[in-house]
């Protein structure tokens, strides 16, 4: 049931205005905080106000203008978009609180918070895009808006990382645009409102190439190997940026794009006939394992997190590529699960850096005696990544495994998932061990926690990791939303 409603438009506009206001107030700290926080709260309320309707199967849409014939700047809230929007706007609020504490001493805060808001605006735009061109539009804007955040430090290293980031993501954008143009030529529309728009009559070869172009284009941001090079370098950005953008907004935009392409542009049926997603699944599997192995060798906390992100993102891609309902469910839910787990870890890394100045893992011996709550949150997230029941990660693994078993030769992927769990344990548990048990002699319990603005968001996220795992089936939790989306795409 389609309902015309202005809220899908207001959601991205709100952050856009927030960004402009932040630029306008310049260095006036109080006003900047006020606008950032109030916009985040209002936006969250706005997005949540649409949740009951979406769960009932309502679809909110709003068409702004037609800026090229047949293709307009249009917004449409379906279950999948709603899911992504809820995750990103919830985390925006939490990260804003964290960033206010974290950026206290930094330079150029107006620029930072301004572009921060713009990024969230574009992310919600991606989530609510009605057609591929609107999605592309926000996808490219996201690239541009994140650049000032990546190079925030203005050091040569940051500039280099920024350049790398732009080259990778804009190259990806070129492939997406090419894909859009070809799709428009073949399908005559770019709408994302149905489960598949491309006609099978185009021919297998052409469709396969088109699919490859889309996968490369969105795969850059989703950091599928070998397109992941920008992500570890981009970790020079301040921790809140890494947290929100490189664990949530940017990388998920890539994964979300792949979902839209698979479910809405090609459609499950067509892709099953083409049989090319098995390659994507293989690529994702390789990424999952290889990135985990590289992560084990990293000593820098944030770099290890980056490789862990690369590995985790491919869970989503794998789940999509398997083309079974349960695997898709696992993939969609993982957008939220991974986001909360990873953001907890980034918050921890940032809090440790701000409080003690340590950035490497081998320096973390006994940190648990100094920052027990922070490290407690870290432990929860680590268990989540390993996939221990009652944490969010378990839900993902459970549905992905079930979905894999439905697919042909699915056991291979189940083995991949189990290997990944072991590898995750291999690189996260030592950190926990170091923090609490490998204590340098003479350490006493001397609590010197991070500032509350850093600690509270971390703890909230950690609690949410457990909530997502324990109460997944409660209506209104992400799983129910994901289920609505899957039912639509698979025609169940």
């Amino acid at each position, binding site marked *: 049931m389609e309902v015309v409603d202005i809220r899908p438009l207001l959601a991205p506009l709100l952050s856009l205005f927030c960004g402009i206001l932040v630029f306008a107030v310049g260095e006036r700290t109080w006003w900047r905080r006020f606008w950032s926080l109030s916009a985040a709260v209002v936006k969250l309320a706005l997005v949540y106000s649409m949740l009951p309707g979406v769960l009932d199967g309502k679809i909110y849409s709003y068409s702004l203008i037609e800026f*090229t014939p047949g293709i307009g700047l249009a917004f449409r809230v379906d279950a999948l978009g709603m899911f992504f929007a809820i995750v990103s706007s919830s985390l925006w609020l939490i990260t804003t609180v964290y960033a206010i504490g974290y950026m206290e001493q930094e330079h150029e805060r107006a620029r930072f918070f301004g572009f921060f808001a713009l990024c969230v605006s574009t992310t919600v735009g991606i989530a609510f895009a009605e057609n591929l061109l609107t999605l592309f539009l926000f996808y490219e804007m996201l690239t*541009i808006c994140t650049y000032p955040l990546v*190079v925030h430090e*203005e050091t040569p290293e940051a*500039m280099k990382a920024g350049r790398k980031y732009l080259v990778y993501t804009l*190259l990806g954008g*070129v492939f997406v645009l090419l894909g859009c143009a*070809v799709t428009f*030529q073949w399908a005559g529309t770019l709408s994302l409102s149905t489960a598949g728009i491309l006609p099978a009559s185009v021919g297998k070869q052409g469709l396969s190439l088109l699919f490859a172009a889309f996968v490369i284009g969105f795969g850059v941001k989703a950091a599928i190997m070998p397109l992941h090079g920008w992500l570890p370098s981009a970790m020079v950005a301040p921790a809140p940026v890494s947290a929100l953008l490189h664990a949530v907004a940017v990388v998920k935009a890539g994964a979300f794009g792949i979902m839209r392409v698979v479910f809405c542009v090609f459609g499950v049926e067509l892709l099953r006939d083409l049989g090319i997603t098995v390659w994507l699944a293989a690529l994702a599997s390789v990424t999952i394992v290889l990135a985990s192995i590289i992560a084990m060798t990293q000593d820098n906390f944030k770099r290890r997190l980056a490789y862990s992100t690369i590995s985790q993102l491919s869970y989503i891609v794998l789940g999509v590529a398997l083309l079974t309902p349960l695997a898709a469910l696992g993939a969609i839910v993982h957008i939220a699960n991974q986001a909360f787990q990873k953001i907890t870890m980034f918050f921890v890394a940032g809090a440790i850096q701000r409080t003690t100045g340590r950035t490497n893992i081998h320096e973390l011996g006994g940190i648990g005696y100094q920052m027990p709550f922070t490290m407690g949150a870290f432990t929860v997230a680590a268990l989540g990544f390993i996939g221990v029941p009652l944490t969010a990660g378990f839900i993902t693994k459970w549905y992905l495994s079930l979905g894999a078993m439905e697919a042909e030769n699915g056991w291979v992927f189940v083995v991949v998932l189990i290997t990944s769990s072991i590898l995750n344990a291999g690189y996260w548990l030592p950190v926990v061990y170091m923090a609490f048990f490998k204590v340098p002699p003479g350490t006493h319990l001397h609590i010197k926690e991070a500032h509350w603005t850093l600690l509270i968001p971390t703890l909230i996220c950690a609690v949410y990791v457990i909530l997502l795992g324990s109460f997944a089936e409660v209506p209104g939790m992400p799983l129910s939303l994901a289920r609505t989306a899957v039912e639509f795409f698979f025609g169940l």
Partner: protein
Amino acid sequence: MYGTQWPVVLLVTPLVGAALTPIIARRRAQLAGYWALFTFSIVSLAAAALTYQIHTQGEFSYYMGGWAPPIGIELRFDEFSASIAVICLVGWLSLLYCLGYAKHAIPERRIPYFYALMLLCLGGMNGFAVTGDIFNLFVFLEILSLAGYALVAITGDGIAELAAFKYLVMGAISSLSILLAIGIMYSLTGTLNMTDLAVRLSDVEPFPAAVAVAALTLGFCVKAALFPLHIWLPDAHSIAPSPVSAVLSGLVVKVGVLGMLRMFQILYASQVLDLTALNNVLMWLGAISIVMGALFAMVQDDIKMMLAYSTISNIGYIFLGLGLASTYGIIGASVHIFNHAIIKACLFLGAGSLIHQTGYRKLSDLRGVGKAMPITSAAIAVGAISIVGIPPTAGFLCKWYIALGAIEADRLFFAVALLFGALLIFVYYIRMLNAFYFMPPSHPEILEVGEAPLTMLIPIVILAILCLVMGIFGRIPLSFIEPAVINMLAPIGG
């Protein structure tokens, strides 16, 4: 009928205004600016009225003095003539900008002549856009070109005269090439009227017609600075005063493109030649232009030099679109005539303000200027993002249409070349933005300079806003162009 005399106002006012400028400004040179702005406001009014008329009642003709062709001079107002709107817009804003700019940048005794030449150049361009007769096309072309050569040299700084001379020689050769083509066409058909020409060309011998087309193409390609005929452009456009650069880069090179469009209109209608070979050449040259312009721009440190090379890339887009000869391709090319004019004017005027305020013109010297001149720098940033074609700015639509056109014409390679070329362009614009925003200033005193005076700031801001608006409301130029392109391609079944 109401408003029928607008065409006369459009063409005669700038000529008369230009002639009167030195007299009016005899005692006070600064009066010239206000006079020129006033004159051109009238012209702009006429252009607006005419554009509106084209919009409401479609194509129409105006006969100078009431004489119908073949004796009289016909002015033809079709959708492509609507480019007078953009000519007047960019021209008017540039003149406004000159009010603040000319005081310091141009020797006082030359100021009246400067404004007179600006009026001539802009007026000539309007004439070029609306004439329905190929010989008048040539005359207007010469008016605007001569004014352009002189404008390049007007500051008398450094190599200005040398650049102007280089521009003059190349320009004169191309004009002669066009005149030659006009002569051939006339001797083949016995008419100079474009509509007649389209009819009569259909049964002439193909060989001389091909020679004429080749000469015409050569001439217009030099004017448009298509690679490898671009060598005059970088020096001329970078050394000229910034508002002149904006007019030259935004509008005057488009004269070549507009000329090509007129030629294609005639050729497609008459079908005298198979244009596949020509289109292929244009397509390839366009693609090479995009890449070469970008490569040259990348190694420039001088901000205006960089912008000048970027013009070559953008002309490459347009020619690529023209050469594709598919509906979307030509739509993209035509829309880019409008959009690039706006974007490049924004960039050149912005760069002019930076140079005017700081006294530096190298990117390495301009570091940190983003903090000193936030509004101008933001406008330049919008222009840069727009010219690279990041949605939802104006540049994106052209890229999108030309890419669609390439796919429509079954030439995926060119779509790929275009999009990757755009990426290459971004590499050097990001260098500029990095210098403005993310690098510590190399001259600390740069942080002390303020924004330029309002007369210079307002045009830049308006143009920057247009860069965004033309992207979001991309249907407006499109509603003009689309029927014209469909009409144009109808004879070849486009």
